[in-house]
């Protein structure tokens, strides 16, 4: 490290840097933006809109189930709405919002200027948006899927699900999985190849570890749902293949294996970023380095591997051989160990830290309470005899809402309050945030705790109504009231967020005195993130005095240069030049969207998709007018 006097240190010329890294102006600039902050923010906002849509669908279901033999929704309409609710929440909200947070925060936390493949990032978002718009556009034409969010054949097959509803569902998955894989590839390459110099793997923040493991899980899980939804279901429905046709040697269980091999890693794909968020929030608000960093990292990686080994616990009731199912009981129990280690490490952090009870910490405690209960019912469901009684009942509905809302939504809300100053430069109102937390917490438990009892006394899942006299009436009414309380809590959260954007208290770069690099950039961060890329000397960079932390100089400002570093110890290896903003990724996504949307009607539309996509890709990769890097 050379200690050069300040004036010759080549401090970045901020004006040139800002012009190089900012998007083009006005609407075309907005469409052609490839800046990770803008695309990350778009992911999160679009996902929250789908959360609202999914929430409204949940309310409609609860109103229909408020009393026995209710006629608020007809049978067909209820089945469509619970399918849309499940699909929207799982595919259009949960995975994209975690990716959006990852795209926004990972480049800032690892100390670089953008994700590895910025144009691919833009393409990923447009495919996700096209998927969501495609599903709800089909819904407007009454092509609404009504076979459930995992659409088991033969019910979802060509003979028993008529019309194009289930096709629209299957093709929507193609959109969202392409977008998820784009994000996964970018994040893996960003985390492994573009970390700030000195940030060796054991100095990486926990959130980046969780995004890395999540991305690897996406890489191996999404092809399974691509096969289940497109190769098996869509081909069976449109061109008459026999993958899941019981009469022709096909096997409905083949679809279930393929889907749940993706299905269970999917819920851990949603859950792992939440673990990273909780670690970040706790590290900052307990004023101490997280306890058991290696244990947390190993349990994340362990969680990633074991998640692929326990999908058959969704299929215990299908009569598979006993010994096979017993293995999956053991695997399902094992994954509780990795979550257990995480929770013990957090408890140790809480015990030995000095906690500041901000709204984010409230949500973390809400997460601890709800997720641990969800984990307990999860261990119960891992045992075959108990699962044979509880499978496809409201006990399971209660379990997965506890682990999904408790395990992912509460940490997400906590992270939203924690990183809101970084997104918008203003603090959210603490009093209103804590109020929304308590209402959400009480509403959640009022809605979903009675469902444990409902499942025990025999109420099965996905029923649009039930006959009186089975003892189910009061619990269902309580659940409906609870759902309304959640609605109120959600509205308060939205009001708080919208109000704070405009008139929240101003937050400087680092309102929480946190330890990770994103708090060194200003709020909201400049298009180039850091004037000079930081050099990392410890696991908690911002808690080491600035004098001990060098900065990187020598990157050219007149072109989008990033630093490519070694995988293990992040020593700088070479500089790389990133492409400029362009419309082509959006046009490519548009071409694929047109072709894929048509393909549920005519198979030849796949060729339209291929040709339009190819044209878009050629434009995307064509060398730009003035080459960035001369030969």
């Amino acid at each position, binding site marked *: 490290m050379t200690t050069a006097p300040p004036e010759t240190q080549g401090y970045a010329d901020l004006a040139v840097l800002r012009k190089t890294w900012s998007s083009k102006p006005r609407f075309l600039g907005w469409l052609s933006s490839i800046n990770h902050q803008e695309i990350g923010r778009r992911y999160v906002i679009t996902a929250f809109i789908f959360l609202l849509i999914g929430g409204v669908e949940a309310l409609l279901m609860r109103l229909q189930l408020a009393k026995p033999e209710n*006629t*608020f*929704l*007809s*049978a*067909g*309409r209820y089945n*469509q709405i619970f399918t849309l609710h499940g699909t929207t929440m799982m595919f259009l909200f949960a995975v994209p919002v975690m990716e959006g947070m990852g795209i926004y925060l990972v480049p800032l936390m690892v100390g670089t200027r953008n994700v590895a493949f910025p144009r691919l990032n833009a393409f990923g978002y447009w495919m996700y948006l096209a998927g969501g718009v495609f599903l709800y556009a089909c819904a407007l034409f*009454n092509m609404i899927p*009504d076979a459930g969010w995992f659409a088991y054949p*033969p019910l979802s*097959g*060509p*003979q*028993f699900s*008529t*019309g*194009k509803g289930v096709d629209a569902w299957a093709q929507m998955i193609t959109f969202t999985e392409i977008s998820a894989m784009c994000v996964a590839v970018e994040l893996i390459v960003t985390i492994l190849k573009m970390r700030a110099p000195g940030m060796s793997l054991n100095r990486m923040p926990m959130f980046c570890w969780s995004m890395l493991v999540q991305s690897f899980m996406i890489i191996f899980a999404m092809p399974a749902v691509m096969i289940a939804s497109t190769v098996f279901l869509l081909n*069976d*429905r*449109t*061109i*008459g*293949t*026999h993958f899941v*046709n*019981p*009469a*022709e040697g096909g096997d409905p269980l083949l679809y279930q294996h393929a889907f749940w091999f993706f299905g269970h890693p999917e819920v851990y794909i949603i859950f792992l970023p939440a673990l990273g968020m909780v670690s970040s929030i706790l590290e900052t608000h307990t004023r101490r380095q997280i306890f058991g960093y290696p244990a947390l990292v190993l349990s994340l990686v362990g969680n990633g591997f074991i998640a692929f080994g326990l999908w058959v616990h969704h299929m215990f009731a299908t009569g598979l051989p006993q010994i096979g199912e017993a293995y999956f009981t053991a695997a399902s129990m094992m994954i509780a160990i990795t979550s257990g280690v995480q929770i013990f490490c957090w408890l140790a952090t809480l015990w030995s830290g000095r906690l500041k009870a901000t709204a984010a910490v409230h949500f973390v405690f809400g997460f601890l309470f709800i997720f641990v209960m969800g984990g307990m019912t999860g261990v119960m469901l891992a045992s075959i005899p108990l699962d044979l009684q509880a499978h496809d009942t409201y006990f399971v509905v209660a379990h997965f809402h506890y682990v999904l809302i408790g395990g992912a939504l509460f940490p997400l809300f906590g992270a939203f309050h924690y990183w809101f100053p970084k997104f918008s430069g203003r603090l959210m109102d603490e009093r209103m945030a804590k109020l929304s937390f308590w209402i959400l917490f009480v509403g959640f438990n009022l809605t979903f705790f009675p469902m444990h009892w409902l499942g025990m006394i025999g109420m099965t899942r996905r029923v649009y109504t039930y006959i009186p006299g089975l003892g189910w009436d009061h619990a269902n009414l309580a659940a409906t009231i609870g759902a309304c309380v959640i609605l109120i809590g959600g509205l308060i959260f939205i009001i708080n967020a919208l109000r704070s954007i405009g008139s929240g208290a101003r937050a400087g770069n680092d309102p929480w005195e946190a330890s990770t690099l994103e708090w060194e950039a200003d709020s909201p961060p400049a298009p180039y993130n850091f004037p000079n890329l930081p050099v990392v000397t410890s696991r908690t960079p911002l808690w080491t005095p600035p004098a001990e932390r060098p900065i990187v100089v020598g990157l050219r400002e007149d072109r989008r240069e990033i630093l490519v570093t070694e995988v293990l110890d992040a020593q700088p290896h070479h500089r790389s030049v990133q492409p400029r903003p362009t419309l082509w990724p959006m046009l490519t996504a548009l071409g694929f969207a047109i072709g894929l949307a048509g393909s549920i*009607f*005519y198979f030849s539309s796949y060729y339209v998709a291929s040709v339009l996509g190819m044209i878009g890709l050629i434009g995307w990769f064509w060398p730009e007018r003035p080459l960035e890097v001369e030969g």
Partner: protein
Amino acid sequence: MRPAPAASGVLGDTASESALHPGSQAQQDTTHLNVVNPYEGNAYAIAEGRRLFGWYNCAGCHANGGGGIGPPLIKKDQRDWIYGGDPVNIFDTIVKGRPNGMPTWGGKIPEYQVWQIVTFVRSLNQLEPRAATPARTDSLEQKTSTIRPDKDAAAHPGAVQQ
């Protein structure tokens, strides 16, 4: 869609689009039959028609459209319909029956179900929109047209195909 139930929900039932209200309404005057097929191009009606085609044992004489005792229902040329291929002709054939063995189903099969069977029979001949016609069924019938005679075997029959 099936006939509308009396009390349909606030947002309506997917089954409520049909204009027919048999049963719960006053008895229909059967002299001038309703000649418009209410289920034209309706995916649900085609699926119901296939189910009823099996349940009412139409396959007993017509096989799965290939013909047996009764004439084939999948016509190679649309001019082959003996009594006409329009929905109203097929409806008439089913309701009134035809000489040489086609029974009269008029009093037996409810009218809306006859229209569903008519729509299904037409879908066998690709007369219904492709988007409404399912690509295959969960039944044993293997599309014989998909298995072409093996050219090599024809060339040198008896040789064990390697």
